[in-house]
């Protein structure tokens, strides 16, 4: 019986856990409860993946009203895969939070932190699982509002400006999405995604449909930090509390990319998006620009968090590149990179949180000599950095391999060269950090630094170890990604 309600519970449990977190007065209890819920979500995501991995599609009708009258959740390989990423990262970040926020957030705000994290998790899971275009917008609002709150909790005053900047950009994005959904409703009279998909092919020449498409692509582009709409991202990631950077940095943009894919392939259909609107010729130059530009900027950053944030913009460029290639291998590369980038950025930000906990800040110069002082933390960082570069045996290699294969398959060899060049740039910007940590002496007047506590190290190493595990045994992620990519292309290959 419980299995049948699994799709609803996946979102409803964290959604209702948020007010409960707020009602629990004891901070520690609130944290324990939140962690427990995050594990429960992860368990449910695993169960869902098991059920749909052979191509089955689960449907859930809210209120017992059949779509398109009611709201429907539908779970297929693609969203089960994204659910797995989001809830998996949450299951690591929530337990990690307790120690991490002790030094970063005033104690009076701990409950607010857990409540907002819970809301953000619920919103992201809901955006992923929903089969209704308007419901997606509602859950997008929940996740965005709570992420503005979370970013503003950063201890630097500039966190407020960063959060405000994100709020403005994010609201514009959300408004564009709402306009797009509204135009679709005016054209078809329905909000259900599957129903929309069945009605849209008949409307191909309609200019309203084209406008709706433009608004949705730009709206999600803002949310996923597509170049040049990425301006909010570096500040937001740099000034947020470490645990928040880890969570939002590895999930929020991924979910936005998923939503973009869902609209491009399922709602509008690959034929309309790529043959009629030719959206790949918009995405490809932007992807190239963001890879080159962001990697370049990342090389000159003083703050490690900001450096990683720019690297995120570059990684998003890879994902968009995979979409713009319009073949199964490219899409598989994108989906694999969703998973892999979540693992590596999550791991790296968690490691940075451990450094921030002991050292107090995360500028490149302030980590000098930490290689000896914090061997486990810096070890984790090195592995994460290798994965970011794309060294074999790490996950970064797998997704880049697929992307390179896809470019070769299409015959776009300049893009192959671009991927290799940008990997070299990643070597440059990560090497600066590693060099400072291992080959520079700790300044004589700097205070003594101990290894980070286990409560931070264990979660960080969990994600870093996942980087290695899925780099060596990539069956699970590639199977799911290939399955999802094939499903999105359906029978009709371009």
């Amino acid at each position, binding site marked *: 019986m419980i299995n049948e309600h699994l799709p609803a519970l996946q979102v409803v449990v964290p959604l*209702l856990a948020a007010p409960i977190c707020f009602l629990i007065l004891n901070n520690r209890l609130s944290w324990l409860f939140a962690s427990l819920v995050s594990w429960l979500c992860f368990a449910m995501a695993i169960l869902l993946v098991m059920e749909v991995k052979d191509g089955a599609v689960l449907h859930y009708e809210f209120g017992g009203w059949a779509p398109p009258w009611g*709201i429907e959740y539908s779970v297929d390989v693609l969203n089960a895969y994204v659910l797995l990423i989001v809830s998996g990262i949450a299951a690591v970040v929530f337990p990690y939070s307790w120690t991490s926020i002790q030094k970063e957030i005033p104690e009076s705000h701990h409950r*607010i932190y857990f409540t907002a994290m819970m809301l953000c998790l619920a919103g992201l899971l809901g955006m992923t699982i929903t089969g209704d275009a308007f419901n997606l917008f*509602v859950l997008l609002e929940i996740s965005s509002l*709570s992420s503005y709150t979370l970013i503003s909790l950063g201890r630097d005053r500039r966190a407020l400006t960063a959060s405000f900047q994100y709020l403005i950009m994010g609201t514009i994005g959300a408004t564009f999405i709402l306009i797009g959904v509204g135009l679709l409703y005016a*054209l078809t009279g*329905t909000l259900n995604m599957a129903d929309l998909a069945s009605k849209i092919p008949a409307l191909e020449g309609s200019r309203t449909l084209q406008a709706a498409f433009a608004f949705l692509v730009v709206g999600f582009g803002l949310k996923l930090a597509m170049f040049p709409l990425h301006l909010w991202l570096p500040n937001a990631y740099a000034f947020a509390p470490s645990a928040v950077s880890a969570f939002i940095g590895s999930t929020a943009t991924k979910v936005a990319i998923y939503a973009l894919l869902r609209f491009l392939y399922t709602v509008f259909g690959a034929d309309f998006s790529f043959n009629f609107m030719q959206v790949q010729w918009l995405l490809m130059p932007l992807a190239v620009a963001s890879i080159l530009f962001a990697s370049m900027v990342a090389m000159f950053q003083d703050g490690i968090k900001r450096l990683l944030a720019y690297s995120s913009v570059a990684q998003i460029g890879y994902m968009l590149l995979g979409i713009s290639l319009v073949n199964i291998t490219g899409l598989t590369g994108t989906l694999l990179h969703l998973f892999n980038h979540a693992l590596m950025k999550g791991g790296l930000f968690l490691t940075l949180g451990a450094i921030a906990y002991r050292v107090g800040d995360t500028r490149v110069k302030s980590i000098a000599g930490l290689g000896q002082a914090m061997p486990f933390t810096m070890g984790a960082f090195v592995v994460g950095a290798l994965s970011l570069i794309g060294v074999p045996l790490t996950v970064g290699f797998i997704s880049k391999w697929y992307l390179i294969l896809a470019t070769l398959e299409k015959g776009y060899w300049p893009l192959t060269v671009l991927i290799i060049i940008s990997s070299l740039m990643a070597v440059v910007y990560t090497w600066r950090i590693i060099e400072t940590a291992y080959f520079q002496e700790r300044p004589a007047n700097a205070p003594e630094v101990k290894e980070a506590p286990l409560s931070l190290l264990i979660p960080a190493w969990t994600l870093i170890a996942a980087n290695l595990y899925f780099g060596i045994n990539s069956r699970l992620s590639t199977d799911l990604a290939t399955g999802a990519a094939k499903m999105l292309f359906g029978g009709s290959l371009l």
Partner: protein
Amino acid sequence: MSAINLLIDIVLLTMLVFTTIAIVRSRSLFAIVMLSGIYSLLSANIFVVLDAVDVAFTEAAVGAGISTVLMLATIGITGYEQKKRRSISRITPLIVVFITGAVLVYGTLDMPAFTNPSNPVHEHVAPRFIEQSPTEVGIPNMVTSVLASYRGYDTMGEVIVVFAALIGVLSLLGIREKKTDPVYTEPPPRPILQVMAKFMIPFIILFALYVQFHGDFGPGGGFQAGVIFSVAIILYTLTFSQQDAMDLVPPWVLKRLAALGVLIYGGTGVVSLLKGGNFLDYNVLAHDPIHGQHYGILIIEFGVGLTVACVMILIFFAFISRGDKNP
């Protein structure tokens, strides 16, 4: 008849355009607040003309009442004037706005003609709402049955959005409870206002209750009722003092109740789950599905009203307890 409607439409929209231009051109934040009050009055009129009663009602309660008050409280924190900043380029926003506008206009070119009865909006989903909701959900106001039952999950999402806004405001501002009022230890006596407020507050609360429970039949429902209720408390705060209001409704109680409202909504869903239906399937709440729908809608509307009222009051408290500090 339709000529007069057209004329009214044109006049209202023209006024709306002028108001918008005035808002954009003004530097005085206070003038902007006043003009946006007018803007929302105008848009409520337009909603009335479009026959969207429930939307007009919400706009009336939210746009004219709460948002003016909250925006004023915000100016109390920020100051009167927009700072002059020369460094910001005006070209980029202008281009963005023009492109957006152009795409919107382009999008309307193939839009189904307004008021054409054979539009997809009228032919696909809507007929069932119109024809079957009286027998399936059993309440006369179709808008309420769509919001609370057919798309009840979205409404739950919206309540949580309101709750998330509260979390944001609490984290940014917090509510300062202070025993003495530093600015006005002795507020100037305003007997006429106080008498008037005492007379009005019961009226407003009564009307809030009417809106809350009459939502099944006429325009209104939990959301609007919550806002109207919070307006009563705000009037009390304004004519007496913040401390008086905080003694009447202590913030810690409001915080609990705001969370409780969300849980009441979600709890209804969980109960229906346990009784063997889907989440938020009110049919299983009673032996007779129609009764079940009735109970379900009544309970969730109560949850909505509770959360909205508490959140609005709390946000107001948070703003004014900040505004006192730096006038």
